[in-house]
């Protein structure tokens, strides 16, 4: 053991204070620890106070992400005037307390206890050898060099030998190194809220168990919380074993969902030779506060995947082979092609699509390219197909296109109304926060046709599950408001003081046509159940609405967003912690890409292109006359392409051929264009129709910012240099310059943010330097004295008074028929992300190797379908084949699938229907028929829908 003493301790640049910080304390107490005075909030543990005072107390079962447990007996201290040797983790500080942490009594006790731990801890523990085991560090700290009881030499010599559980693709469990401190069990329960782990047996026989099976077969969701909490190497990332301990770390932001978790990328090597050893969630991350999910924590390997394209490529026709070329040749071909199209077909014949997976800075320059260099407003973003109705609806009602709260606000919610969202799969780290609040007693209403996990899961049960039929959301939300208003449960004072058009709205919503009884046939909700839910939301204390794409992806998506805003306003649930209207954004930078002016009618900061003063700001700065008319949205681009008036498209980081609805229509439009430029990590489905391919950079190579669903601007920092030779914003600028717009130059991404701040009031106080200093900021940040705005609309709405909109229910034209009697709705699964371009290139496929069709037992039985059968899924626009999963999660008449795999191509069957205000596709409502597939059909589908990358 002495030979190992020079090794570094466990890699953790963040100080572990031992117990969580006390947030809500009013009073401060003063304590003296080993002669050092420290003031801490009342309720703070002695262990934490000591750490804050710079006094290190040995510990094993304590960590500051978990409530104190008091079992390891390592953190014992003596307190003047008190009897015994209390555990400092479970002992709160009291004013005037005097503590000794290094008396002979406690030193002897700790040493004895450590000897007992070591007596069953193998000398060949690879974590100890590697410096990834706290036992080693603690043994050194307490001076337990000798073990009177002997030590097992190898892991097979410990008292109870068990096979190492290697079932999880990302981490292993070796019980020989385990000290049964329960940190993993508590992390799984208290932080993640899954309760997959337990302690089996008693005393010396006790053992950590994943519910009596291996980790992969258990309820474990592979969030990594147990691995992070483990003080030994019993639970350890396999990457640590393969690569060894990291030598440096970079603080950055996850590139998956809209939660926007902060991570410490722990790395070996420098420059191009760098290898990411592991991603560790940052305790200081405002969005995640030290937690993670299986995607952000483990699924980063795609950045180094063999499918990654690292060179620009061109071809004359989409039937030709790709030819690798220099950046100069590729950029020149783009510029010449786009200019030729404009010369022949007009300025508006080309456009661009920016990506919500790219940084704010990258997105900003794409919209600048389109507006200033292309000379039109044909810029759109993938938010078109997810949260564009949020932008429209919240701007109309509140005055700005963003959610009202920070994530932490959920800790003050008393009633959570969750509509059309499945956070445990799509926003898992936020779901853990939500579940924690629910375990504390908040009450839950779930409005979703599918019986999502939150309806009933360990220690969480929705008080009401309202299985709203797809397409009936507006009727549902109106019925909720109808009950509240007609039963006098609304907040009359808030409505009168804070809202406009109140009388008209109140009269509209009180009409009997909006009652739960009148709308029951439309919504499928029993009137009494809906009334009870409405009463609970209105009277249960702080009511918070959280919603997802089950709201927006409808023909009345925007109306539904306004309906939810109405509901929050009539109950006064706006402008303080614990309430609000909260969109759960799909991709990491959906909020940011919208903020950065990616919509064809708005400049950055959601300012309409027709406003002379706003256009003037950019015309002066960019030196170009700008188009005052809105441009084409993505679906409009497709229509215009088929009409022959739109001929060239620059697509940054989006796979519209897989993600957008009605694939046949999209592919026909792409084929109709003269020049398609795809900038991406991989040759995606859309690249099959491209003439120029530009290699993009992964988040591990980017320097910039992402803005998450709570408007939090987080830094993205390069972990290693770009693998393709250029940053993505440089590529975009090079295209602009090649097209004759010479002013498109920046020295750094920071300089782009400076331009954003200089031209966008809500970002005025944002800069890389300030973000590096304070960590993150939630916009609006009006000046450099502000650190942001966690809660919006506190004293007044951005638009002045809130607008109560008469949200008339208009049924979708997409209805079930005799030919297509079922309704298909689509969604996501935990382990995969969006079109799967990233997660399919990781071990996450272990959990979800293919998309499946969930179908109710009654619908399955009448079609002779069993779980595992291949079935044909057909709509009026197309058909595909996938495997069935008979499930009572679905109501009869509704089937469900995901769109993560190109082979399945779920969007082959979705239609052109879209939201009336924004053209967001109606993914959630497609009339379909399902039947057992025949073998020939399966083969044909598989051949025609082979993924693009296999053709690379």
């Amino acid at each position, binding site marked *: 053991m002495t030979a190992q003493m020079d090794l570094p301790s466990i890699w953790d640049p963040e100080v572990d204070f031992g117990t969580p910080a006390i947030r809500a304390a009013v009073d401060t107490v003063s304590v003296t620890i080993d002669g050092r005075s420290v003031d801490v909030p009342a309720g703070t543990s002695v262990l934490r106070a000591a750490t804050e005072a710079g006094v290190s107390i040995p510990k094993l079962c304590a960590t500051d992400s978990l409530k104190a447990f008091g079992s390891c007996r390592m953190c014992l201290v003596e307190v003047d005037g008190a009897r015994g040797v209390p555990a400092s983790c479970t002992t709160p500080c009291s004013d005037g307390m005097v503590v000794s942490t290094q008396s002979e009594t406690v030193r002897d006790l700790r040493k004895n206890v450590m000897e007992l731990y070591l007596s069953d801890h193998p000398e060949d523990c690879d974590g100890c050898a590697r410096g990834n085991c706290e036992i080693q560090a603690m043994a050194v700290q307490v001076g337990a060099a000798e073990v009177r009881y002997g030590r097992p030499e190898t892991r097979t010599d410990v008292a109870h030998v068990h096979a190492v559980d290697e079932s999880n693709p990302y981490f292993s469990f070796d019980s020989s190194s385990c000290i049964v401190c329960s940190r993993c069990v508590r992390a799984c329960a208290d932080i993640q809220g899954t309760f997959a782990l337990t302690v089996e047996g008693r005393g010396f026989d006790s053992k950590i168990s994943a519910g009596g099976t291996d980790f992969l077969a258990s309820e474990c969701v592979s969030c990594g919380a147990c691995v992070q909490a483990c003080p030994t190497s019993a639970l350890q990332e396999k990457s640590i074993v393969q690569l060894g301990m990291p030598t440096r770390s970079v603080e950055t932001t996850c590139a998956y969902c809209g939660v926007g978790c902060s991570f410490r990328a722990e790395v070996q090597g420098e420059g191009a030779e760098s290898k990411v050893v592991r991603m560790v969630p940052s305790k200081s991350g405002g969005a995640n506060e030290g937690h993670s999910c299986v995607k952000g924590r483990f699924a980063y390997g795609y950045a180094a995947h063999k499918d990654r394209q690292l060179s620009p490529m061109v071809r004359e026709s989409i039937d030709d082979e790709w030819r690798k070329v220099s950046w100069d040749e590729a950029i020149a071909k783009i510029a010449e092609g786009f200019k030729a199209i404009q010369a022949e077909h007009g300025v508006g014949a080309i456009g661009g699509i920016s990506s919500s997976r790219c940084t704010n800075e990258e997105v900003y320059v794409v919209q600048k390219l389109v507006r200033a260099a292309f000379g039109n407003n044909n810029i759109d973003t993938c938010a078109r197909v997810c949260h564009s109705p949020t932008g429209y609806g919240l701007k109309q009602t509140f005055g700005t296109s963003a959610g009202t709260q920070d994530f932490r606000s959920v800790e003050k919610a008393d009633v959570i109304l969750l509509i059309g969202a499945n956070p445990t799969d799509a926003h898992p780290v936020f779901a853990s926060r939500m579940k924690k609040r629910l375990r504390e007693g908040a009450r839950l209403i779930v409005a979703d046709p599918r019986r999502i996990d939150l309806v009933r899961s360990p220690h969480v049960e929705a008080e009401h599950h309202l299985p709203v039929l797809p397409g009936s959301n507006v009727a549902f939300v109106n019925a909720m408001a109808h009950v509240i208003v007609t039963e006098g449960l609304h907040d009359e004072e808030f409505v009168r003081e804070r809202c406009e058009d109140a009388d008209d709205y109140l009269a509209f919503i009180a009409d009997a046509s909006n009652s739960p009884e009148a709308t029951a046939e439309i919504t499928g909700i029993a009137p009494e159940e809906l009334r009870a839910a409405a009463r609970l939301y209105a009277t249960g204390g702080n009511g918070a609405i959280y919603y997802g794409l089950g709201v927006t992806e409808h023909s*009345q998506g925007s109306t539904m967003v306004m309906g939810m805003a109405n509901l929050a306003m009539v109950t006064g649930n706006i402008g303080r912690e614990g309430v609000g209207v909260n969109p759960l954004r799909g991709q990491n930078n959906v909020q940011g890409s919208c903020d950065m002016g990616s919509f064809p*009618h708005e400049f950055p900061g959601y300012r309409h292109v027709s406003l002379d003063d706003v256009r003037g700001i950019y015309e002066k700065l960019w030196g170009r006359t700008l188009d005052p008319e*809105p441009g084409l949205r993505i679906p409009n681009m497709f229509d*215009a392409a088929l009409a022959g008036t739109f001929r060239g498209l620059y697509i940054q980081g989006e796979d519209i051929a897989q993600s957008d609805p009605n694939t046949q*229509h999209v592919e026909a439009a792409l084929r109709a264009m003269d020049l398609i430029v795809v900038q991406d990590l991989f040759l995606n489905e859309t690249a099959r129709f491209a003439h120029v391919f530009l290699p993009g950079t992964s988040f591990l190579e980017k320097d910039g910012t992402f803005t998450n669903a709570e408007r939090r601007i987080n830094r993205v920092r390069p972990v290693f240099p770009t693998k393709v030779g250029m940053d993505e914003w440089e590529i975009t600028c090079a295209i602009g310059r090649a097209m004759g717009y010479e002013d498109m130059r920046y020295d750094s991404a920071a300089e782009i943010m400076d331009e954003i701040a200089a031209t966008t009031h809500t970002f005025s106080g944002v800069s890389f330097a300030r973000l590096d200093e304070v960590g993150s900021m939630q916009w609006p940040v009006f000046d450099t004295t502000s650190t942001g705005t966690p809660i919006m609309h506190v004293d007044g709405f951005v638009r002045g008074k809130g607008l109560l909109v008469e949200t*008339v229910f208009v049924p979708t034209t997409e209805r079930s028929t005799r030919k297509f009697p079922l309704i298909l709705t689509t969604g996501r699964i935990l382990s995969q992300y969006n079109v799967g371009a990233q997660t399919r290139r990781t071990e996450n496929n272990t959990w979800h190797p293919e998309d499946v069709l969930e179908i109710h037992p009654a619908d399955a039985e009448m079609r002779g379908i069993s779980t595992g059968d291949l079935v044909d899924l057909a709509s009026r626009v197309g058909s595909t084949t996938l495997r069935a999963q008979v499930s009572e999660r679905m109501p009869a008449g509704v089937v469900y699938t995901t769109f993560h795999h190109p082979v399945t191509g779920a969007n082959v069957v979705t239609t052109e229907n*879209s939201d009336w205000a924004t053209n967001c596709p109606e993914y959630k409502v497609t009339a379909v028929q399902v039947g057992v597939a025949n073998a020939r059909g399966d083969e044909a589908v598989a051949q025609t829908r082979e993924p693009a990358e296999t053709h690379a």
Partner: protein
Amino acid sequence: MMTVPPEVRMGNQIAQQFANLPPAEAAAAIARHIENFWEPRMRHTLEALVAAGDDSLEPLLVDAVGRLVAG
């Protein structure tokens, strides 16, 4: 498969959303929405359909397009 021009489908959809308002108010709201969010060539297509007397257009939409043309 798509026999209805997209401008007709989208325009009628917008008209239905405002159908609860008094007709003049509704037509103004529809016109405002189209002006704010539709690219000019889409507006021109719709104007041409109205000029051609396309009978699949909602009357409120026709009224709104008239207002757009009148400026």
